[in-house]
């Protein structure tokens, strides 16, 4: 059975069997005769020379970075922190200003935002207006519900283009 974390939305883990030490290849082989296609087992017995290929497990997992320039050269991507407030707005301002001067377009991923204050929203609004003046583009991708709610409360959701339709959902 799966391990159950009380806060998790995953109850029973249907993949747990894959880590079981008693997972037995031989029993799987026996099951081949019962495959959906009965052709499978017969094929195997007739074609023992099917060439092998190594499974590729060599790649290291990549850890997502907070912010990084995209590989498309003229476009940069910034992933916003979950909590955005007056304490870190100066740093964000510095980073965005730098990106705006170096790239033609910036995609701001706001999917992880849990809390955002008016200072940060104002910064994003000014950034968007500045970009228009420079004929550059800023898009706020996949804004979280909290982001949309805060920008609507401040009356700038339309200007930031963060309503659901503009954001690409449905």
């Amino acid at each position: 059975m799966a391990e159950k974390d009380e806060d998790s939305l995953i109850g029973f883990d249907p993949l747990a069997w894959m880590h079981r030490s008693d997972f037995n290849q031989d029993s799987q082989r026996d099951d081949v005769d019962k495959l959906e296609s009965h052709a499978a087992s017969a094929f195997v017995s007739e074609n023992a020379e099917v060439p092998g290929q190594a499974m590729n497990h060599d790649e290291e997992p990549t850890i997502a970075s907070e912010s990084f320039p995209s590989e498309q050269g003229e476009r940069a991507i910034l992933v916003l922190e979950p909590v955005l407030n007056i304490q870190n707005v100066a740093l964000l301002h510095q980073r965005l200003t730098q990106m705006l001067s170096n790239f033609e377009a910036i995609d701001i991923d706001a999917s992880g935002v849990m809390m955002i204050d008016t200072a940060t929203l104002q910064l994003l609004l000014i950034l968007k207006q500045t970009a228009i003046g420079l004929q550059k583009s800023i898009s706020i991708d996949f804004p979280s519900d909290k982001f949309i709610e805060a920008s609507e409360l401040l009356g700038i959701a339309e200007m930031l283009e963060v309503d659901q339709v503009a954001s690409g959902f449905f």
Partner: protein
Amino acid sequence: MSARIVAVLNQKGGVGKTTTSVNLTHALAKLGKKITVIDFDPQSHLAVSLGVVDPQKSGIDRVLLEGVSLAQQLISVRKNLNLVVAGPRLQEIEQLMDGGARSGDLLRKALLDGHRDEDFIFIDCPPSSGVLVANALFAADEILVPMTSDYLALQGLSHLMGTIKKFESALKRPYKISLVMSRYIPTRRISKEVLSVIQKYFPGQILATTIRETALLAECPSFGKTIFEYRPGCRSARDFTALAKDFLEGRMM
């Protein structure tokens, strides 16, 4: 040069197999790779998505049932991208039980035939686990599994892995398996949790770019256009371009 044969497979419906097949193959073709994509689903949604709508046009059905060569059935649909449609008789393969072993081996043999110059052959599989999928698994070198980030998709993945492991055991060769997170909704907590579970079981096997759910991806098949034609430069087009690079360079999460 032999092509890498990739089965785009998940027996669960609605996980983005056809969307991935259409847009990933077009992205790879735009990057200069020579691609053949086979519509292996009798519903023919891949062909429709690429703008080929004649339901009576024969394709892989004649290759498998009548022994016509694959080369004869290729349709050039975009630069560097050839399509083999499903054809009206493909469903008959599912009822082919008399051939015994050979009914599972038809596609592999058809792909061995001829000297073509593709870099990749993609097989867009049906959402089932019958004779057609057996054919795809016998023919494929690698499997690309599109996954949505919901709980039932996890359940489906468990079933799929059981099937794949049986084939690996029977064929005595492991597949290279990659997963692509499609229809991903980053603002949903369940999406992140499902992804986290998948990462636990498939470390280094999930392509680095997630394909995020957008309305545009749902809209473009009705115009027979890929996302690169329907709305070039949009988020989804950028997602698929990044995914194609991940696929070529083996860049995983």
